[in-house]
């Protein structure tokens, strides 16, 4: 429904004009002002911290000293903090590690989830009910932290980046969303392909996947964000700080207050610590903010399916 409403707006016959139905009373001034103020406040609450962090990361030492800390109004653009963190050292390495974990992890997760979701999308197939129950039961019974830790370390995954990927590779929630979507694909389409002799793998690759790009994009975003944001798993399993992902480094710099260990620049040439810290925040948040708008427009469809079926 939301989708239809959006497309009618997109069709744009009366773009920008309010589509208030005839029976609805015109809004009162007080109501309008209250709603406008509320929405402005909500939007500012999200965007202001981002703004301050970005501006401070680009500020020079003088600007930061003058402001007495965080900077609200940009005066110049000084990228020395970024030069410092990208000139090798822990932050650069951590970003590479996170990029690697995110790429490999998302590829593994999306592939296996799509396969399993398709394999479970056919009621009446062999062991369908049992397998479905096997997957759904993970919502009700779950392992505690301690046994999981023992299993993962017992498999020799301590200090391995696979420890950040394999234990959380399958999200049953994402699987349920995909399965619901696959089940909505008209069965006649699949049946006709089957009669023509196409095997299940071929049907999945040639018919189902092209029809499900949007929902797969959303699921991929969910997985990718999960891998990019991984912090506690790294705290548990990664002791070698040459393999720390970016969140782990961010936490040790900003919340645990260690100074950024950056080789390269020293002494007077060093940009202010605050700018460096804020630059670390920016590079950690940037991938999420940059990818998000491209996937966000698919949310409504994808999440509604999940919400209604789940």
């Amino acid at each position, binding site marked *: *429904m*939301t989708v239809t409403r959006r497309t009618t707006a997109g069709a744009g016959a009366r773009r*920008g004009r*309010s*589509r208030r*139905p005839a*029976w*609805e*009373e015109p809004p009162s001034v007080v*109501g309008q002002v209250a709603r406008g103020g*509320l*929405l402005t406040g*909500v*939007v500012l609450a*999200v*965007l202001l*911290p981002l703004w*301050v*962090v970005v501006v401070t990361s680009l500020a020079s030492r003088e600007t930061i000293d003058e402001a007495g800390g*965080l900077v609200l109004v940009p005066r110049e653009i000084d990228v020395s903090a970024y030069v410092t963190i990208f000139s090798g050292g822990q932050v650069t390495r951590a970003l590479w590690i996170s990029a690697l974990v995110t790429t490999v992890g998302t590829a593994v997760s999306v592939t*296996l989830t799509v*396969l*399993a979701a*398709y*394999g*479970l999308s056919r009621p*009446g*197939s*062999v062991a369908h009910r049992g397998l479905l129950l*096997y997957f759904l039961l993970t919502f009700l019974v*779950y*392992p*505690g*932290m*301690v046994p999981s*830790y023992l*299993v*993962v370390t*017992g*498999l020799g995954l301590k200090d391995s980046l696979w420890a950040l990927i*394999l*234990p*959380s590779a*399958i999200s049953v929630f994402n699987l349920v969303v995909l399965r619901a979507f696959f089940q909505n694909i008209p069965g006649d389409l699949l049946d006709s*392909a089957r*009669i*023509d002799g196409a095997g*299940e*793998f*071929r049907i*999945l690759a040639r018919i189902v996947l092209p029809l499900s790009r949007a929902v797969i994009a959303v699921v991929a975003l969910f997985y990718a964000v999960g891998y990019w944001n991984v912090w506690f798993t790294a705290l*548990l399993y990664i002791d070698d700080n040459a393999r720390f992902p970016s969140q782990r480094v*961010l936490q040790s710099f900003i919340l*645990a207050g260690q100074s950024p260990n950056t080789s390269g620049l020293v002494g007077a040439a060093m940009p202010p610590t605050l700018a460096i810290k804020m630059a670390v*925040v920016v590079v950690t*948040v940037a991938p*999420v903010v940059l990818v998000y708008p491209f996937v966000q427009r698919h*949310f409504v469809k994808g*999440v509604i399916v999940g*919400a209604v079926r789940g």
Partner: protein
Amino acid sequence: MSTREAVRPGGGWETPDVGPGGASAAGSDTRRAGRDVRAARRRRRPGRRPPLRARLRRDWPLLVMVAPAAALLLVFHYVPTLGNVVAFQDYNPYAGDSPLQAFLASPWIGFGNFEALFSDPAFWDAFWNTLSITAFQLVFYFPLPIALAIVLNGILSARLRAFVQSVVYLPHFFSWVLVVTFFVQMFGGAGLLAQTLRDAGLQPWDIMSNPDTFVVLVTAEAVWKDAGWGAVVFLAALSTIDPHLYEAAAVDGAGRWRRLWHVTLPGLRPVIVLLLILRLGDALSVGFEQFLLQRDAVGRQAAEVLDTFVYHQGITTGNYGYGAAAGLFKAVVGLVLILAANRIAHALGERGVYSRS
């Protein structure tokens, strides 16, 4: 079978005109296709299914597809779930070379860990902290996504609404490390608020390290991160309410607030009940990373919840059996809670969580 078809030129679903005699391999293929059609026809008739061997021949690719995911869940979900039995052991990690050997060599002590747990004041602190944070958030967090969804739904301009939605969903995708970082930068001792207050000649106060207001702080963080995202579900539910109901109500003289009360909220009721059940079933989980990250700043008294208790007892101090006992306690209580909540929902005539299938 499918590999042969994959390499057969011109085969597959793109060429629907491959009929009998159309290709060299067509004989066996038509027979197979005929069998599939017959199988499909038989499937439509309830009660009669083809024998297992035939279904296996038909469905084995589906089983192959499910296998890797099922295997991962087996290793990383079900095996650890069974591994919860270390809660009944005096688990000694040094009793063997690997956790498995240590597990086999460790002595069984029955409910010893649980007895120690239930007489541990630190455990009860964590337990009551968890419950009070849940209760607080039920009042001050839970209604906000509903309200936000209603406000968002009222924006008439589609473009403005899409923009606001994008903005409020965004923090959901930030890690807790980032969220806490943002809060430290805004409200911490050296944060923007303290800075501004100091400039204005006022005494700044630091809510980031105050144990007394910690519950407010974590709720504010949770609201900032997830209230926007939480509205998605309610927006979806709002869009399924029949607009004619609003029109009819308006024609009958119901104003804005009456329509909200008599049309909108009843329309949202199933979703609200569903999410309330899920939240109650999860009453012993209030988040984990959020608390672990801030535990040092405000101290154990305020910030210890059950999950962080498990982590510190079980893993940091190496008291594995004890930590597992706390974890198992939480899991069992959680399961009981969700089953109970679902039963209550059914009794109230709602659909609940898993009425279907």
